[in-house]
C-alpha cells in the first residue's frame, strides 16, 4: 500500500483532454444539451460520431488487435471527466465502458471478436443489460433466463429495468441464467422478440429504459467459469470510472460558480468578496482536489490491474459521489435565483451529479462494501 501509482495526468492524457475539450466546447455547448431535453432525441448522434469515430475514443479500452486503441482506464477516465463536464448526451459510459469491459473480460470468440471492432469504431453502440444502479459485488442477475432450442440456438427470456441506453444500443451484453448457471450472452438489439422502452429520466442526458426479451436469439460468450468474473470486472470498472465523471461535473460546477462570484454584484461589490461564499468555494475546491486524487487512484489501480481495484473503486464512489452532488448543489445556491432557472446550466450539472450518485451503487452502499474489503466488519 505504500507504493501509490502516479496520480498525475500524463502528457498524453493532457493532450487527449485538450482535444476532447476543444471538440466539446465547439459541438456541445450546454445550451444545445438543454434544448435537446424538450425533443424526442436524447442522444447527439453527430457528437457520438465525432467522439467515437473521429477521435477514436470508443475503443480506448479495446485492444489494438481488435481495432481499439489499447489504452488504459486512465485515458478512459480523462475522457469521462470531459464528457461529464459538458454533460454530453452520448452513450459513452454504457457502451465504451460497461459493455466493452464485460466483453474484453470474456474469452475470445467469434461473436465477441466481431462485436468489439464495431464498438471500437463507434459504428455500433452496446450496453450491459443490468439495472443502472447495480453495484460491484451484487449477486448475478436472475431476471433473464436462457434456453437452447432443438437446433442448439440460445433464446433469452426475461427483462431488465433501468438499463442505460436501452433505447439506443445496437448490441446487448446480457447476464443470463441458463439452467440456473450464470452466463453472458450477446444479443442483436434488432432481433425478434426484443422490445425496449425509454423512461423519462432525472438526468435527461442519460436515458434508461426497460429491455424485455421474449425468446430472443442470442450467442453465449461467457460460461459459468467466466461470466461472474467478467460481470464483476465490468462493474468494478464502471464504478471506478464514474468517479471521473463525478470529478468532471464537480469541477465544472465550481468553475461556473467562481465565474459568477466574480461578476455578480450585490450591495455594491462582487458577491465573491463575501467571506461566507469565499469559504464555501474554497472548501469545494479542497474537496475537488481530494476527489481528483481519489478518482485518479481508481483509474490507475484499474490500469495496473491492481488487486486494490475493488477498494479503489468503492473508495472513489464513496467520496466522489458526494463531492459532485455537493458542488452542483452549491452551484445552484450560490447563483441564487438564476441558478434555479431552466435557462441556466446549473440544473444540468445537478441532475447529472445526483443521477451519477445512484449509478452502480450509492455512497452509502460503497461505504458498507468497503467495510468488507478492508476488514472493518459491520456490526
Amino acid at each position, binding site marked *: 500500500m505504500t507504493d501509490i501509482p502516479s496520480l498525475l495526468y500524463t502528457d498524453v492524457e493532457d493532450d487527449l483532454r485538450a482535444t476532447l475539450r476543444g471538440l466539446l466546447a465547439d459541438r456541445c455547448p450546454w445550451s444545445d444539451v438543454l434544448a435537446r431535453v424538450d425533443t424526442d432525441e436524447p442522444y447527439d448522434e453527430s457528437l457520438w460520431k465525432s467522439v467515437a469515430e473521429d477521435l477514436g475514443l470508443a475503443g480506448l479500452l479495446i485492444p489494438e488487435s481488435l481495432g481499439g486503441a489499447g489504452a488504459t482506464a486512465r485515458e478512459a477516465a480523462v475522457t469521462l471527466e470531459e464528457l461529464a463536464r459538458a454533460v454530453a448526451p452520448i452513450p459513452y459510459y454504457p457502451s465504451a465502458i460497461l459493455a466493452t469491459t464485460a466483453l474484453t473480460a470474456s474469452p475470445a470468440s467469434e461473436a465477441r471478436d466481431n462485436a468489439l471492432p464495431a464498438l471500437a469504431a463507434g459504428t455500433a453502440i452496446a450496453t450491459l443489460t443490468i439495472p443502472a444502479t447495480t453495484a460491484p459485488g451484487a449477486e448475478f442477475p436472475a431476471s433473464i433466463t436462457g434456453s437452447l432450442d432443438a437446433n442448439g440456438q440460445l433464446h433469452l427470456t426475461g427483462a431488465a429495468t433501468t438499463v442505460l441506453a436501452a433505447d439506443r444500443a445496437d448490441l446487448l451484453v446480457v447476464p443470463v441464467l441458463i439452467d440456473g448457471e450464470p452466463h453472458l450472452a450477446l444479443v442483436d438489439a434488432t432481433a425478434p422478440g426484443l422490445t425496449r422502452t425509454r*423512461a423519462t429520466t432525472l438526468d435527461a442526458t442519460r436515458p434508461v429504459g426497460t429491455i424485455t426479451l421474449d425468446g430472443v436469439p442470442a450467442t453465449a460468450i461467457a460460461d459459468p467459469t467466466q461470466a461472474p468474473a467478467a460481470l464483476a470486472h465490468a462493474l468494478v470498472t464502471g464504478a471506478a470510472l464514474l468517479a471521473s465523471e463525478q470529478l468532471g461535473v464537480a469541477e465544472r460546477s465550481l468553475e461556473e460558480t467562481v465565474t459568477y462570484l466574480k461578476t455578480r454584484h450585490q450591495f455594491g461589490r462582487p458577491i465573491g468578496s463575501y467571506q461566507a461564499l469565499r469559504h464555501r468555494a474554497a472548501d469545494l475546491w479542497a474537496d475537488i482536489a481530494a476527489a481528483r486524487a481519489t478518482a485518479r487512484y481508481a483509474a490507475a489501480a484499474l490500469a495496473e490491474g491492481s488487486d486494490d481495484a475493488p477498494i479503489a473503486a468503492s473508495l472513489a464512489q464513496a467520496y466522489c459521489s458526494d463531492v459532485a452532488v455537493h458542488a452542483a448543489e452549491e452551484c445552484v445556491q450560490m447563483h441564487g435565483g438564476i441558478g434555479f432557472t431552466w435557462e441556466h446550466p446549473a440544473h444540468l450539472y445537478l441532475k447529472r451529479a445526483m443521477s451519477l450518485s445512484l*449509478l452502480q451503487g450509492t455512497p452509502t452502499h460503497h461505504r458498507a462494501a468497503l467495510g468488507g474489503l478492508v476488514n472493518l466488519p459491520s456490526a
Partner: protein
Amino acid sequence: MPQNSGATGVTAEEIRTRVRELAAAHDPATTDHVEFLGHRFDAGLAWVHFPVGCGGLGAPRALQQVAEQELAAAGAKPANVYRNPIGLGMGAPTVAVHGTEEQRSRLLRPLWTGEEVWCQLFSEPGAGSDLAGLATRAVRDGDDWIVNGQKVWTSFAHKARWAMLLARTDPDLPKHQGLTYFFLDMSLPGVEVRPLRQATGQAEFNEVFLTDVRIPDSMRADEVGKGWTVSNTTLMNERVAIGGGASPREGGVISPVAALWRSRPEVRTPALHDQVMKAWVEAEVARLANARIGQQLAAGKPGPEGSAAKISFARINQETTRLWLELSGEDGLTYDDWTMRRVDLGGSDGGRSAGYYYLRAKGNSIEGGTTEILRGVIADRVLELPREPRTDTKLPWKEIPR
C-alpha cells in the same frame, strides 16, 4: 395603520351582530361567493381592523378571528386565498396603509373578492438579495410616469390585474432614497408577462418586461422617494406564518420517506436506517421549534425564530428529498415529466416523483429570502454582531459598481 388602534371600541358582540345581519341579508348558502364577499366587504367584515370604507370597522385586529369563526358558523366560505394570495397577504395592507382615499376605494374591494388578482414587481435579474439596488426606471412625464425595466420571480403575474411596483425615480440619490412605489395596472400597454421556467421543468413564476409603460401619478403610493418605506410594509406582510400552528408529526417531506421505509423492507440497510432517523429527528425537531414559535406568537411575544425556521425548512427539505431519491433506488433515476407548464405558487403539487421534490427543494433556500440573507438577518438583529463594511449605502445609486 395608526387608525386601527382599536380606539373606536368595536366589541366582539358587535362583530357577531354584524355577521348575523350580513348572513340574514345575503344567505351564504345561496349567494354567489364573489357577490357574498362583496357584501362582506361592504359590511366592514373583510378586515375588521381596516378603516371603515376599506372593508373594515377600525376594530382591534384580534377581532378578525371572531368574524372568521362567526362567518364560518353561518356557513360562509372564507376569501379564496389560493386565488389571490399576494393581493390578500401583501397588497391589501399596503394599499390600506399607504394608499390614497381614491386608491383604497378603487383597489381594495375587487382585491378582496378575488375579482382582481395582484402580483408583486420587486425583484429584478440584477437585484435579488439586494432589492434596493433595482434598476427599473420611472421617469415623470406630465401627469404620468414612464416606466422601463425587467422584473423577475413574479408569481401570479399572468393572472394579475394589479401589481405592486417598486421603481427608481432618482438615480442620483443613494439607493434606498431614489425609489418610488406604484400600483400598476397590468393591462396597460407595454406590460409583457413571460413564464419563467425552473429547474423542475415547470414555471411557477414569471418575468415581467415593462416597456414605456405609462402609469398615472394618481397610482403612485405615498410620496416620491418613499418607495423603500412602502416596500417594507409589503415585505413585513410577506412572512408566511411557518410556525403558525402545530403540524402533525411526520407532517412534512419526511412523510413519504417514512412511508417508503415502512412499506418496502427491501430498501432498508443499516446505514440508511441512521440516515432516515436523522431526517426524522430533524423533521420532528423542526415541528417542535415551529410549535414553540407559534406559542410565542400566541403569547404576544413574537421572536426572531422565523428566519431560523425558514432556514431549517429549506435544509430539511433538501436533505430529506435527497435521501428519498437514494431510498428510491432505480426509481430515483427517473422523472415524471419535463414538459413546461405553468403552476401556481401554493397550488397543489402532490403526487410527483421524488426527483421533482428534490429539485423543487433547491428553490426553498433561495425564494423569499436566501438562506444567506436570513443568516445575516439573525446575525444583525438577534446576535447584534457588527455589520460588514458597506460601501453602497451612501453613494449615488448610479455610481455603485454592478
